[in-house]
């Protein structure tokens, strides 16, 4: 009798214990991923693929068991291209939703608006665009390409192929200004000449005068780092005025897919260096494109921002799983080993320990008269070396600063 009682109690205990264990596993809270991407307003056409890329990655990761067995909950807010809203939403995601990681931002202005807020927390932040480079901040992991990957490849190629005189049209905010500074530095090193530089306020859509200024300056080629839908009207207007100059850019084609949005030949003779463009033809890339278009059949173009946003979640997964922790400091220990890599559709990409920027396989592409995209040169994998070279070393010191060729760290 007694033994039966005991046995029953033990049995009950085992059952309850198992149930409790099961309940605990089911109740394991999901990982919260906060996402800030513009899907309305002027930049919606670029932001939409970023949201889609994130959704695709979350769906795939959740289907294959999540991260450390935890599902991902994606919380997306739409700041509508407004930097004040970026700050408000970042605070909301960090303090109210208590997200485990924050991802997003399109313009460099929005990133710089959000970064000080992140820096006051211990939450990791992934910036998923190519940009003007130079951010040395332990809270930020940059997934996109930077000038040493884009300009140091593109500009020498343009100079060699088309000539030493360049005219720059750039959007008038930090991205355009700092990119123009990069161009001045690289052109100077090459013995080239910047025959004109014009900064355009965001929202300007009429370029007759700019086109004429360019014709007056007689450059060999144009560096077009104009931003946004309004400023993109330049290409149509320049083509209508038969400007017919070779163009180079760090953001056209693979990012703004102007060759899909404008009627040929407006983008004819455009050149860009990119880690991703939809025309990449490798088995890994084609498989990725197939999965994307199956989920989003109406996508006009998978741009590099959307692609980088997709990679960001896999990079996050890798970091968390290697660190066995969602804490920024533990993840940074993984980054410091130099072993934070993923097999991306472009190939293997790794995070550089010193700068927390990503290595990329870079290709130089050109656009033809029918807007066909051709790969002109394959540079292989290029590491984001510039920040490390000038003395940013996040494994030793957190600068929380953005450096440019004219704003270098103080030598200590």
């Amino acid at each position, binding site marked *: 009798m007694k033994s039966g009682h005991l046995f029953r109690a033990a049995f009950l205990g085992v059952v309850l214990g198992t149930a409790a264990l099961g309940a605990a596993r089911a109740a394991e809270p999901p990982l919260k991923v906060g996402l800030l991407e513009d*899907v*309305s*307003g*002027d930049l*919606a*056409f670029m*932001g*939409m693929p970023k949201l889609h890329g994130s959704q695709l990655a979350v769906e795939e990761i959740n289907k294959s068991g999540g991260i450390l067995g935890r599902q991902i909950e994606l919380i997306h807010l739409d700041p509508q291209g407004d930097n004040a809203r970026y700050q408000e939403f970042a605070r909301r995601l960090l303090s109210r939703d208590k997200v485990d990681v924050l991802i997003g931002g399109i313009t460099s202005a929005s990133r710089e608006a959000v970064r000080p807020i992140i820096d006051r927390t211990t939450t990791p932040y992934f910036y998923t665009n190519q940009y003007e480079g130079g951010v040395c901040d332990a809270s930020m992991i940059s997934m996109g390409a930077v000038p040493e990957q884009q300009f140091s490849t593109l500009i020498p190629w343009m100079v060699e192929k088309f000539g030493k005189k360049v005219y720059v049209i750039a959007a*008038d905010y930090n991205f355009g200004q700092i990119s123009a500074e990069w161009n001045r530095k690289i052109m100077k090193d090459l013995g080239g000449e910047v025959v004109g530089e*014009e*900064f*355009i*306020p965001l*929202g*300007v*859509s*009429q370029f*007759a*005068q*700019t086109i*004429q*200024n360019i*014709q*007056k300056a*007689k450059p060999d080629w144009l560096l077009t780092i104009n931003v946004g*839908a*309004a400023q*993109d*009207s330049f290409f*149509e*207007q320049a*083509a*209508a*005025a*038969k*400007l017919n100059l070779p163009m180079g850019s760090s953001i056209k084609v693979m990012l703004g897919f102007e060759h*899909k*949005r*404008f*009627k*040929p030949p*407006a983008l004819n003779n455009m050149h860009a260096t990119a880690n991703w463009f939809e025309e990449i033809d490798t088995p890994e890339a084609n498989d990725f494109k197939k999965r994307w278009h199956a989920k989003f059949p*109406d996508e*006009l173009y998978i741009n590099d921002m959307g692609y980088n946003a997709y990679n960001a979640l896999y990079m996050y997964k890798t970091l968390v799983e290697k660190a066995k922790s969602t804490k920024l400091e533990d993840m940074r220990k993984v980054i410091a080993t130099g072993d934070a890599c993923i097999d991306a559709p472009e190939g293997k990409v790794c995070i550089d320990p010193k700068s927390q920027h990503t290595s990329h396989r870079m290709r130089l592409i050109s656009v033809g008269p029918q807007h066909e995209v051709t790969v002109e040169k394959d540079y292989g994998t290029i590491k984001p070396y510039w920040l490390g070279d000038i003395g940013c070393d996040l494994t030793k010191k957190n600068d929380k600063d953005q450096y440019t060729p004219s704003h270098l760290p103080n030598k200590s």
Partner: protein
Amino acid sequence: MMSAELFSVFYQFADVFAFLILSAAGLAIVFGMMGVINMAHGEFIMCGAYVTVGLVKLGVPLAIAQGLAAVTAGLIGVAVEYLIVRRLYKRPLDSLLATWGLSLIVTQSMLLIVGSSITGIGTPEGSFAIGGYTFSTYRLVLFACAVAVLIGLYVIFMKTRFGVMARATMQNAAMAKALGARTGRIYAISFGIGAGLAGLCGALYAPTMTLIPTMGATFVVESFVTVVVGGANVLLGTAPAAVFLAMIRMALNASYGQIIGQIGMLFAVILIIRVLPEGLSSVLVRRGR
């Protein structure tokens, strides 16, 4: 070579002038004459652009598509007047809110239905060279259209029976009604013409621009600025306002670039409003008398 420089100055002036006139013409009627602060002005422009592109893609010739787009925008304008604006003539601030709301609803709906961007149709072929410069012929077509719009407005509002009644209605609706004018219809038609002209602006610029649901926004500042500088008398004010602002902007654009051009133009606007609160037309009308 000298003549090339001269022509280029004229061309740049014509380009800015056309942009100001075409974006402001519709608003001159709706805001200048009728007093409705139409925050959805940019969305009528977008409507004209989208209809044009849609029709061209269906195979309609560009010029006909542009005409149909302007008419479409005009008809939508009549409907908007009848459904929303008509109830708010005595409440200008509420009409501002209502049209602003309309603008937000329209841009977001377009984003959801049509998508964040549609492919352009390309500017009509044609360019010519003078000196070392090459120019797009289509920009001169825009200038010609701007002049035609000004003449058309003058004829409609100064030389037709409808124009007389419309001006009477805007000045004193009760009196005009007592004298037999059908003021309700006149308001609707005037608003329709305003919306149609906005649609025409979008239709004309559609081949030259990026097409996104918020594209109207790039026209709105210039259009309000031109109308405000023109002043109360729309027919006399808008054209000289556009000439004045175009000269300032062109000169500064050419010498100092687009940023200074924009700052300079807006600075001139502040000066004008400060010195001539009634706008340029107040001076012209006084001279005229």
